[in-house]
Protein backbone atom coordinates (compact mmCIF):
# COMPACT_ATOMS: atom_id res chain seq x y z
CA UNK A 1 0.00 0.00 0.00
CA UNK A 2 1.32 3.45 -0.93
CA UNK A 3 0.08 6.92 -0.19
CA UNK A 4 1.55 9.68 -2.33
CA UNK A 5 1.29 13.13 -0.81
CA UNK A 6 2.68 15.82 1.39
CA UNK A 7 2.44 15.85 5.20
CA UNK A 8 1.20 19.45 5.08
CA UNK A 9 -1.62 18.74 2.60
CA UNK A 10 -4.96 18.54 4.42
CA UNK A 11 -6.27 16.08 1.84
CA UNK A 12 -3.23 13.82 2.30
CA UNK A 13 -3.66 14.10 6.08
CA UNK A 14 -7.26 12.91 5.70
CA UNK A 15 -6.04 9.71 4.04
CA UNK A 16 -3.14 9.35 6.49
CA UNK A 17 -5.31 9.48 9.57
CA UNK A 18 -7.57 6.78 8.12
CA UNK A 19 -4.54 4.55 7.47
CA UNK A 20 -3.36 5.09 11.05
CA UNK A 21 -6.84 4.45 12.51
CA UNK A 22 -6.93 1.17 10.58
CA UNK A 23 -3.37 0.31 11.72
CA UNK A 24 -2.35 -0.54 8.15
CA UNK A 25 1.19 -0.90 6.84
CA UNK A 26 1.92 1.49 4.02
CA UNK A 27 4.65 3.56 2.37
CA UNK A 28 4.23 7.30 2.50
CA UNK A 29 5.76 8.59 -0.73
CA UNK A 30 6.41 12.29 -0.30
CA UNK A 31 5.48 14.46 -3.28
CA UNK A 32 7.42 17.71 -3.36
CA UNK A 33 4.76 20.18 -4.41
CA UNK A 34 7.16 23.12 -4.23
CA UNK A 35 9.01 21.47 -7.13
CA UNK A 36 5.76 20.78 -9.02
CA UNK A 37 6.07 17.03 -8.65
CA UNK A 38 2.26 16.77 -8.46
CA UNK A 39 2.07 18.02 -12.06
CA UNK A 40 4.61 15.55 -13.43
CA UNK A 41 3.54 12.96 -16.01
CA UNK A 42 4.13 10.10 -13.59
CA UNK A 43 2.01 11.69 -10.87
CA UNK A 44 -0.74 12.61 -13.34
CA UNK A 45 -1.04 8.92 -14.16
CA UNK A 46 -2.02 8.42 -10.50
CA UNK A 47 -4.22 11.51 -10.22
CA UNK A 48 -5.20 13.19 -13.49
CA UNK A 49 -6.24 16.32 -11.58
CA UNK A 50 -2.63 16.79 -10.41
CA UNK A 51 -3.69 16.89 -6.76
CA UNK A 52 -2.51 15.02 -3.70
CA UNK A 53 -3.06 12.45 -2.40
CA UNK A 54 -2.92 9.48 -4.70
CA UNK A 55 -3.17 5.94 -3.34
CA UNK A 56 -2.13 2.48 -4.47
CA UNK A 57 -3.12 -0.91 -3.08
CA UNK A 58 -1.76 -3.63 -5.33
CA UNK A 59 -3.11 -2.87 -8.79
CA UNK A 60 -5.76 -0.51 -7.48
CA UNK A 61 -5.03 3.18 -7.92
CA UNK A 62 -7.25 5.82 -6.33
CA UNK A 63 -7.46 9.57 -5.93
CA UNK A 64 -9.70 11.92 -3.90
CA UNK A 65 -8.98 11.59 -0.18
CA UNK A 66 -12.59 10.79 0.72
CA UNK A 67 -12.65 7.94 -1.81
CA UNK A 68 -9.36 6.62 -0.39
CA UNK A 69 -10.71 6.66 3.17
CA UNK A 70 -13.93 4.94 2.07
CA UNK A 71 -11.99 2.26 0.23
CA UNK A 72 -9.75 1.60 3.24
CA UNK A 73 -12.71 1.56 5.63
CA UNK A 74 -14.57 -1.03 3.56
CA UNK A 75 -11.67 -3.14 2.28
CA UNK A 76 -10.17 -3.45 5.77
CA UNK A 77 -13.41 -3.31 7.75
CA UNK A 78 -12.21 -5.83 10.33
CA UNK A 79 -8.84 -4.19 11.05
CA UNK A 80 -8.24 -1.36 13.52
CA UNK A 81 -10.96 1.20 14.21
CA UNK A 82 -14.30 0.49 12.59
CA UNK A 83 -14.88 3.63 10.54
CA UNK A 84 -18.21 2.57 9.01
CA UNK A 85 -21.43 0.95 10.24
CA UNK A 86 -22.50 -2.50 9.02
CA UNK A 87 -26.16 -1.68 9.48
CA UNK A 88 -27.53 -0.30 6.18
CA UNK A 89 -29.74 2.33 7.80
CA UNK A 90 -27.02 3.64 10.14
CA UNK A 91 -24.53 3.73 7.26
CA UNK A 92 -27.00 5.76 5.19
CA UNK A 93 -27.13 8.36 7.97
CA UNK A 94 -23.31 8.34 8.30
CA UNK A 95 -23.16 8.85 4.54
CA UNK A 96 -25.42 11.92 4.88
CA UNK A 97 -23.02 13.52 7.37
CA UNK A 98 -20.03 12.60 5.19
CA UNK A 99 -21.68 14.61 2.42
CA UNK A 100 -22.42 17.43 4.88
CA UNK A 101 -18.69 17.65 5.63
CA UNK A 102 -17.82 17.59 1.93
CA UNK A 103 -20.56 19.95 0.74
CA UNK A 104 -21.31 22.28 3.68
CA UNK A 105 -18.36 22.33 6.07
CA UNK A 106 -15.45 21.99 3.67
CA UNK A 107 -15.80 25.13 1.52
CA UNK A 108 -16.17 27.83 4.20
CA UNK A 109 -13.69 26.16 6.57
CA UNK A 110 -11.08 25.73 3.82
CA UNK A 111 -11.55 29.37 2.77
CA UNK A 112 -10.98 30.45 6.39
CA UNK A 113 -7.92 28.20 6.69
CA UNK A 114 -6.44 29.95 3.65
CA UNK A 115 -7.28 33.47 4.84
CA UNK A 116 -6.17 33.03 8.45
CA UNK A 117 -3.47 30.35 8.35
CA UNK A 118 -1.87 29.80 4.94
CA UNK A 119 -1.98 33.31 3.49
CA UNK A 120 -0.21 34.93 6.47
CA UNK A 121 2.54 32.29 6.11
CA UNK A 122 2.83 33.14 2.42
CA UNK A 123 2.87 36.88 3.07
CA UNK A 124 -0.54 37.35 1.42
CA UNK A 125 -2.84 39.95 2.97
CA UNK A 126 -5.95 38.57 4.68
CA UNK A 127 -9.24 39.64 3.02
CA UNK A 128 -11.57 40.70 5.86
CA UNK A 129 -14.65 40.44 3.62
CA UNK A 130 -13.85 36.83 2.74
CA UNK A 131 -13.29 36.08 6.42
CA UNK A 132 -16.61 37.66 7.41
CA UNK A 133 -18.56 35.87 4.67
CA UNK A 134 -17.09 32.48 5.43
CA UNK A 135 -17.39 32.87 9.20
CA UNK A 136 -21.10 33.52 8.71
CA UNK A 137 -21.44 30.43 6.49
CA UNK A 138 -19.49 28.30 8.95
CA UNK A 139 -21.61 29.58 11.85
CA UNK A 140 -24.76 28.29 10.15
CA UNK A 141 -23.15 24.89 9.63
CA UNK A 142 -21.97 24.74 13.24
CA UNK A 143 -25.47 25.61 14.49
CA UNK A 144 -26.72 22.49 12.70
CA UNK A 145 -23.82 20.49 14.17
CA UNK A 146 -24.64 21.77 17.68
CA UNK A 147 -28.20 20.47 17.39
CA UNK A 148 -27.04 17.20 15.85
CA UNK A 149 -24.40 16.55 18.52
CA UNK A 150 -27.00 17.05 21.25
CA UNK A 151 -28.68 13.86 19.93
CA UNK A 152 -25.66 11.92 18.69
CA UNK A 153 -22.32 11.29 20.35
CA UNK A 154 -20.47 11.64 17.05
CA UNK A 155 -21.64 13.42 13.93
CA UNK A 156 -22.80 10.35 11.95
CA UNK A 157 -23.87 7.98 14.72
CA UNK A 158 -22.86 6.95 18.21
CA UNK A 159 -19.40 5.78 17.22
CA UNK A 160 -16.45 7.48 15.54
CA UNK A 161 -16.71 7.11 11.75
CA UNK A 162 -15.41 8.60 8.52
CA UNK A 163 -17.99 11.38 8.96
CA UNK A 164 -16.00 12.66 11.96
CA UNK A 165 -12.57 11.75 10.57
CA UNK A 166 -12.97 13.80 7.39
CA UNK A 167 -13.20 16.97 9.49
CA UNK A 168 -9.88 16.53 11.28
CA UNK A 169 -7.35 18.22 8.96
CA UNK A 170 -9.18 21.55 8.57
CA UNK A 171 -10.49 21.45 12.13
CA UNK A 172 -6.92 21.21 13.42
CA UNK A 173 -5.94 24.32 11.47
CA UNK A 174 -8.98 26.37 12.46
CA UNK A 175 -8.35 25.65 16.15
CA UNK A 176 -5.09 27.60 15.82
CA UNK A 177 -6.90 30.67 14.45
CA UNK A 178 -9.47 33.10 15.94
CA UNK A 179 -12.18 30.92 14.32
CA UNK A 180 -11.70 28.46 17.19
CA UNK A 181 -14.15 30.64 19.11
CA UNK A 182 -16.92 29.43 16.80
CA UNK A 183 -16.22 25.85 17.92
CA UNK A 184 -15.55 26.58 21.59
CA UNK A 185 -18.68 28.70 22.05
CA UNK A 186 -20.93 25.77 21.10
CA UNK A 187 -20.80 23.21 23.96
CA UNK A 188 -21.63 20.06 21.96
CA UNK A 189 -19.42 21.03 19.02
CA UNK A 190 -16.63 21.88 21.45
CA UNK A 191 -16.92 18.51 23.18
CA UNK A 192 -16.90 16.67 19.86
CA UNK A 193 -14.01 18.65 18.40
CA UNK A 194 -11.78 18.07 21.46
CA UNK A 195 -12.57 14.37 21.48
CA UNK A 196 -11.78 13.69 17.86
CA UNK A 197 -8.69 15.90 17.80
CA UNK A 198 -7.25 14.01 20.75
CA UNK A 199 -7.41 10.60 19.08
CA UNK A 200 -3.95 8.93 18.94
CA UNK A 201 -4.14 8.31 15.18
CA UNK A 202 -4.69 12.03 14.58
CA UNK A 203 -1.86 12.97 16.92
CA UNK A 204 0.42 10.77 14.80
CA UNK A 205 -0.51 12.80 11.72
CA UNK A 206 0.11 16.09 13.55
CA UNK A 207 3.55 14.83 14.63
CA UNK A 208 4.36 13.86 11.03
CA UNK A 209 3.34 17.30 9.86
CA UNK A 210 5.92 18.87 12.10
Amino acid at each position, binding site marked *: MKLHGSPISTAAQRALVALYEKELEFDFVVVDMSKGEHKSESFLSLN*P*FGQVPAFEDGD*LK*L*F*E*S*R*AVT*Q*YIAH*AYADTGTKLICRN*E*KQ*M*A*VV*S*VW*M*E*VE*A*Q*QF*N*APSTALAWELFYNPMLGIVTDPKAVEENEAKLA*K*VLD*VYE*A*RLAKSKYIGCDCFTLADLHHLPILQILMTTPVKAAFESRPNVSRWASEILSRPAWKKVVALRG
Partner: protein
Amino acid sequence: MVEIRGELREKGKSKLQTSLMAATGVKVYGPPLSTAVSRVLGCLLEKDVQFQLIPINLAKGEHKKPDFLKLQPFGQVPAFEDEGLSLFESRAICRYICEKYANGGNKGLYGTDFLSKASIEQWLEAEGQNFNPPSSALVFQLAFAPRMKLKQDEGVIKQNEEKLAKVLDVYEKRLGESRYLAGDEFSLVDLSHLPNAHYLVSATNRGEMFTARTNVGRWWGEISSRDSWKKVVEMQKSPPGA
Protein backbone atom coordinates in the same frame (compact mmCIF):
# COMPACT_ATOMS: atom_id res chain seq x y z
CA MET B 1 -44.87 -12.49 7.24
CA VAL B 2 -41.84 -14.68 7.72
CA GLU B 3 -38.32 -13.86 8.67
CA ILE B 4 -35.80 -14.52 5.93
CA ARG B 5 -32.19 -13.61 6.64
CA GLY B 6 -33.15 -11.14 9.33
CA GLU B 7 -35.79 -9.35 7.25
CA LEU B 8 -39.54 -9.60 7.54
CA ARG B 9 -41.00 -10.54 4.17
CA GLU B 10 -44.37 -11.55 2.89
CA LYS B 11 -44.24 -15.32 2.43
CA GLY B 12 -43.45 -16.18 -1.16
CA LYS B 13 -42.17 -12.69 -2.06
CA SER B 14 -38.55 -12.24 -3.07
CA LYS B 15 -36.30 -9.57 -1.63
CA LEU B 16 -36.72 -7.65 -4.86
CA GLN B 17 -40.51 -7.84 -4.72
CA THR B 18 -40.56 -6.82 -1.10
CA SER B 19 -38.28 -3.89 -1.87
CA LEU B 20 -40.44 -2.75 -4.76
CA MET B 21 -43.59 -3.04 -2.66
CA ALA B 22 -42.01 -0.95 0.06
CA ALA B 23 -40.72 1.48 -2.53
CA THR B 24 -44.07 3.22 -2.74
CA GLY B 25 -43.02 4.63 0.63
CA VAL B 26 -40.16 6.56 -1.01
CA LYS B 27 -40.74 10.29 -0.83
CA VAL B 28 -38.64 13.03 -2.37
CA TYR B 29 -39.27 16.59 -1.24
CA GLY B 30 -38.36 19.47 -3.54
CA PRO B 31 -38.88 21.01 -6.98
CA PRO B 32 -37.52 19.05 -9.98
CA LEU B 33 -35.91 22.28 -11.21
CA SER B 34 -33.42 22.07 -8.34
CA THR B 35 -30.18 20.45 -9.54
CA ALA B 36 -29.82 18.47 -6.34
CA VAL B 37 -33.43 17.24 -6.47
CA SER B 38 -33.04 16.23 -10.11
CA ARG B 39 -29.93 14.21 -9.21
CA VAL B 40 -32.05 12.08 -6.87
CA LEU B 41 -34.91 11.80 -9.38
CA GLY B 42 -32.48 10.60 -12.05
CA CYS B 43 -31.17 7.93 -9.70
CA LEU B 44 -34.65 6.71 -8.70
CA LEU B 45 -35.65 6.46 -12.35
CA GLU B 46 -32.47 4.58 -13.32
CA LYS B 47 -33.18 2.10 -10.52
CA ASP B 48 -36.89 1.74 -11.40
CA VAL B 49 -37.88 2.73 -7.87
CA GLN B 50 -41.42 4.01 -7.37
CA PHE B 51 -41.55 7.29 -5.52
CA GLN B 52 -43.75 10.19 -4.58
CA LEU B 53 -42.52 13.68 -5.37
CA ILE B 54 -43.72 16.20 -2.85
CA PRO B 55 -43.44 19.77 -4.12
CA ILE B 56 -41.72 22.36 -1.95
CA ASN B 57 -42.33 25.97 -2.92
CA LEU B 58 -38.97 27.69 -2.54
CA ALA B 59 -40.38 31.08 -3.53
CA LYS B 60 -42.78 30.85 -0.58
CA GLY B 61 -39.95 29.80 1.75
CA GLU B 62 -41.44 26.37 2.48
CA HIS B 63 -37.91 24.96 2.80
CA LYS B 64 -37.21 27.22 5.79
CA LYS B 65 -40.32 26.24 7.75
CA PRO B 66 -39.94 24.16 10.96
CA ASP B 67 -41.61 21.05 9.51
CA PHE B 68 -39.17 20.95 6.62
CA LEU B 69 -36.17 21.75 8.81
CA LYS B 70 -36.94 18.55 10.74
CA LEU B 71 -36.23 16.66 7.51
CA GLN B 72 -33.35 18.84 6.28
CA PRO B 73 -31.70 20.97 8.98
CA PHE B 74 -29.89 23.20 6.44
CA GLY B 75 -33.21 24.22 4.88
CA GLN B 76 -32.19 22.96 1.43
CA VAL B 77 -33.78 20.61 -1.06
CA PRO B 78 -34.00 17.67 -1.47
CA ALA B 79 -35.18 15.86 1.61
CA PHE B 80 -35.94 12.14 1.35
CA GLU B 81 -37.81 9.50 3.29
CA ASP B 82 -37.98 5.75 2.91
CA GLU B 83 -39.53 3.37 5.45
CA GLY B 84 -39.11 5.77 8.33
CA LEU B 85 -35.51 6.65 7.40
CA SER B 86 -34.99 10.35 6.77
CA LEU B 87 -32.02 11.41 4.63
CA PHE B 88 -30.64 14.48 2.86
CA GLU B 89 -27.67 15.51 0.63
CA SER B 90 -28.42 14.28 -2.89
CA ARG B 91 -25.26 12.18 -3.30
CA ALA B 92 -25.86 10.38 0.03
CA ILE B 93 -29.47 9.73 -1.03
CA CYS B 94 -28.28 8.33 -4.37
CA ARG B 95 -25.78 6.01 -2.67
CA TYR B 96 -28.55 4.78 -0.34
CA ILE B 97 -30.93 4.15 -3.25
CA CYS B 98 -28.25 2.18 -5.10
CA GLU B 99 -27.45 0.04 -2.03
CA LYS B 100 -31.05 -0.54 -0.95
CA TYR B 101 -32.43 -1.24 -4.41
CA ALA B 102 -29.31 -2.93 -5.76
CA ASN B 103 -31.31 -5.47 -7.75
CA GLY B 104 -33.64 -2.95 -9.39
CA GLY B 105 -33.32 -1.20 -12.74
CA ASN B 106 -29.73 -0.48 -13.78
CA LYS B 107 -27.92 -3.02 -11.59
CA GLY B 108 -24.44 -1.69 -12.37
CA LEU B 109 -25.18 1.93 -11.47
CA TYR B 110 -23.02 1.78 -8.33
CA GLY B 111 -20.57 -0.82 -9.61
CA THR B 112 -20.75 -4.58 -9.98
CA ASP B 113 -17.72 -5.45 -7.87
CA PHE B 114 -15.31 -3.99 -5.37
CA LEU B 115 -12.95 -2.46 -7.94
CA SER B 116 -15.68 -0.83 -10.04
CA LYS B 117 -17.21 0.58 -6.87
CA ALA B 118 -13.85 2.08 -5.78
CA SER B 119 -13.49 3.74 -9.18
CA ILE B 120 -17.02 5.11 -8.95
CA GLU B 121 -16.38 6.52 -5.46
CA GLN B 122 -13.24 8.24 -6.70
CA TRP B 123 -15.00 9.93 -9.62
CA LEU B 124 -18.06 10.75 -7.47
CA GLU B 125 -15.78 12.63 -5.10
CA ALA B 126 -14.13 14.33 -8.09
CA GLU B 127 -17.60 15.41 -9.26
CA GLY B 128 -18.48 16.69 -5.82
CA GLN B 129 -15.17 18.46 -5.16
CA ASN B 130 -13.91 19.56 -8.59
CA PHE B 131 -16.82 19.71 -11.06
CA ASN B 132 -19.65 20.76 -8.80
CA PRO B 133 -18.32 24.02 -7.29
CA PRO B 134 -17.48 25.85 -10.54
CA SER B 135 -20.41 24.39 -12.51
CA SER B 136 -22.89 25.25 -9.73
CA ALA B 137 -21.56 28.80 -9.56
CA LEU B 138 -21.96 29.17 -13.33
CA VAL B 139 -25.45 27.65 -13.32
CA PHE B 140 -26.49 30.13 -10.65
CA GLN B 141 -24.86 33.15 -12.32
CA LEU B 142 -25.88 32.38 -15.90
CA ALA B 143 -29.15 30.42 -15.67
CA PHE B 144 -30.81 31.36 -12.40
CA ALA B 145 -29.66 34.89 -11.51
CA PRO B 146 -31.17 36.46 -14.65
CA ARG B 147 -34.51 34.69 -14.01
CA MET B 148 -34.47 35.83 -10.40
CA LYS B 149 -33.52 39.36 -11.50
CA LEU B 150 -30.30 39.18 -9.50
CA LYS B 151 -27.11 40.96 -10.57
CA GLN B 152 -24.48 38.76 -12.17
CA ASP B 153 -20.88 38.90 -10.96
CA GLU B 154 -18.51 38.97 -13.93
CA GLY B 155 -15.52 38.18 -11.74
CA VAL B 156 -17.18 35.08 -10.31
CA ILE B 157 -18.23 33.98 -13.79
CA LYS B 158 -14.72 34.31 -15.22
CA GLN B 159 -13.06 32.59 -12.26
CA ASN B 160 -15.42 29.63 -12.41
CA GLU B 161 -15.23 29.31 -16.18
CA GLU B 162 -11.47 28.92 -15.86
CA LYS B 163 -11.83 26.33 -13.10
CA LEU B 164 -14.45 24.37 -15.02
CA ALA B 165 -12.35 24.47 -18.20
CA LYS B 166 -9.46 22.81 -16.33
CA VAL B 167 -11.76 20.09 -15.03
CA LEU B 168 -13.22 19.49 -18.48
CA ASP B 169 -9.70 19.20 -19.91
CA VAL B 170 -9.08 16.34 -17.48
CA TYR B 171 -12.42 14.80 -18.50
CA GLU B 172 -11.52 15.18 -22.19
CA LYS B 173 -8.41 13.07 -21.69
CA ARG B 174 -10.17 10.53 -19.49
CA LEU B 175 -13.10 10.12 -21.89
CA GLY B 176 -10.68 9.41 -24.70
CA GLU B 177 -9.61 6.31 -22.72
CA SER B 178 -12.90 5.31 -21.15
CA ARG B 179 -16.46 5.37 -22.45
CA TYR B 180 -17.83 6.84 -19.23
CA LEU B 181 -15.96 8.56 -16.41
CA ALA B 182 -15.63 5.67 -13.96
CA GLY B 183 -15.34 2.93 -16.58
CA ASP B 184 -17.03 1.50 -19.61
CA GLU B 185 -20.52 1.45 -18.13
CA PHE B 186 -22.83 4.36 -17.28
CA SER B 187 -22.70 4.89 -13.54
CA LEU B 188 -23.81 7.11 -10.70
CA VAL B 189 -20.79 9.29 -11.56
CA ASP B 190 -22.10 10.29 -14.97
CA LEU B 191 -25.61 10.67 -13.56
CA SER B 192 -24.31 13.03 -10.88
CA HIS B 193 -23.03 15.40 -13.58
CA LEU B 194 -26.31 15.61 -15.48
CA PRO B 195 -28.12 18.31 -13.44
CA ASN B 196 -25.50 21.06 -13.69
CA ALA B 197 -24.32 20.14 -17.21
CA HIS B 198 -27.92 20.13 -18.43
CA TYR B 199 -28.45 23.75 -17.37
CA LEU B 200 -25.12 24.89 -18.77
CA VAL B 201 -25.83 23.29 -22.14
CA SER B 202 -29.53 24.16 -22.45
CA ALA B 203 -29.97 27.38 -20.48
CA THR B 204 -26.72 29.31 -20.98
CA ASN B 205 -24.40 30.17 -23.85
CA ARG B 206 -21.56 28.16 -22.27
CA GLY B 207 -22.74 24.82 -23.64
CA GLU B 208 -19.73 24.84 -25.94
CA MET B 209 -17.54 24.04 -22.97
CA PHE B 210 -19.03 20.55 -23.28
CA THR B 211 -19.95 20.25 -26.94
CA ALA B 212 -16.74 21.69 -28.40
CA ARG B 213 -14.58 19.12 -26.61
CA THR B 214 -14.71 15.96 -28.76
CA ASN B 215 -14.79 13.29 -26.07
CA VAL B 216 -16.74 15.33 -23.51
CA GLY B 217 -19.23 16.19 -26.26
CA ARG B 218 -19.62 12.52 -27.18
CA TRP B 219 -20.10 11.61 -23.51
CA TRP B 220 -22.57 14.42 -22.94
CA GLY B 221 -24.62 13.31 -25.94
CA GLU B 222 -24.83 9.76 -24.61
CA ILE B 223 -25.63 10.47 -20.98
CA SER B 224 -28.16 13.21 -21.67
CA SER B 225 -30.14 11.02 -24.04
CA ARG B 226 -30.80 8.29 -21.48
CA ASP B 227 -34.51 7.65 -20.93
CA SER B 228 -34.24 8.30 -17.21
CA TRP B 229 -32.72 11.75 -17.75
CA LYS B 230 -35.24 12.63 -20.43
CA LYS B 231 -37.99 11.88 -17.89
CA VAL B 232 -36.33 14.17 -15.36
CA VAL B 233 -36.18 16.98 -17.92
CA GLU B 234 -39.91 16.45 -18.61
CA MET B 235 -40.60 16.69 -14.89
CA GLN B 236 -38.62 19.95 -14.78
CA LYS B 237 -40.81 21.36 -17.56
CA SER B 238 -44.09 20.38 -15.95
CA PRO B 239 -43.57 19.98 -12.19
CA PRO B 240 -46.38 18.32 -10.22
CA GLY B 241 -48.42 20.41 -7.77
CA ALA B 242 -46.59 23.58 -6.69
